[in-house]
């Protein structure tokens, strides 16, 4: 049972346009979410997070939106740059577990074309 799903394996956008990466979850106990960026043969890099008490969090070119009723979150990258080309993972967790364990989606490969 996959609790966090990224249904789009890949996404291609033009440089300067908006990239929208989507993530769905099934476990209503999840109360915070994170996005990571990963290059091949490297560890994931933390990008942005959001708590379930918010519906939006913004950090520079990155904005995460959370729709709790739909159990859906999305990462917007504006404007997209060629250096953003990587695999993006969303992850979810339960704060009250006090463990910080993350459940990851399968990832979406973003290609930004110059």
């Amino acid at each position, binding site marked *: 049972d996959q609790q966090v799903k990224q249904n789009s394996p890949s996404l291609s956008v033009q440089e300067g346009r908006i990239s929208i990466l989507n993530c769905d979850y099934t476990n209503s106990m999840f109360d*915070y979410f994170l996005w*990571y960026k990963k290059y091949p043969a490297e560890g994931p890099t933390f990008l942005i997070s959001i708590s379930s008490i918010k519906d939006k969090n913004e950090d520079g070119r990155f904005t995460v939106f959370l729709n709790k009723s739909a159990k859906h979150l999305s990462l917007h990258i504006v404007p997209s740059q060629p250096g953003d080309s990587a695999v993006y993972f969303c*992850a979810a967790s339960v704060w009250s577990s006090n463990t910080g*364990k993350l459940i990851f989606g*399968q990832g979406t490969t973003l290609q930004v074309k110059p």
Partner: protein
Amino acid sequence: SQTIHQWPATLVQPVGSPLSLECTVEGTSNPNLYWYRQAAGRGLQLLFYSVGIGQISSEVPQNLSASRPQDRQFILSSKKLLLSDSGFYLCAWSVAKGFIYEQYFGPGTRLTVT
């Protein structure tokens, strides 16, 4: 600032041989620590986590074990490797920020079992 180290970066081991991967964190105390594996073309799977010295929780039954002999040291081991143990192994640590545990990853170890 905090840093996380993993070694070795790459490892090729024959089936049936032992394994020891080490992870250390600097610049923080009493972190939660994690081991993940990314199989080829797959997402990140949590293998073990630790909330303190000597406290290890296993997430999936497998041929591997973990130990935390010191506060900032996390070791992944196996007595006899299987072909299915090949993958990219990632160590991570987390820190609580508000109602979120932000998790940060090491550079990873590429393990190939032959």
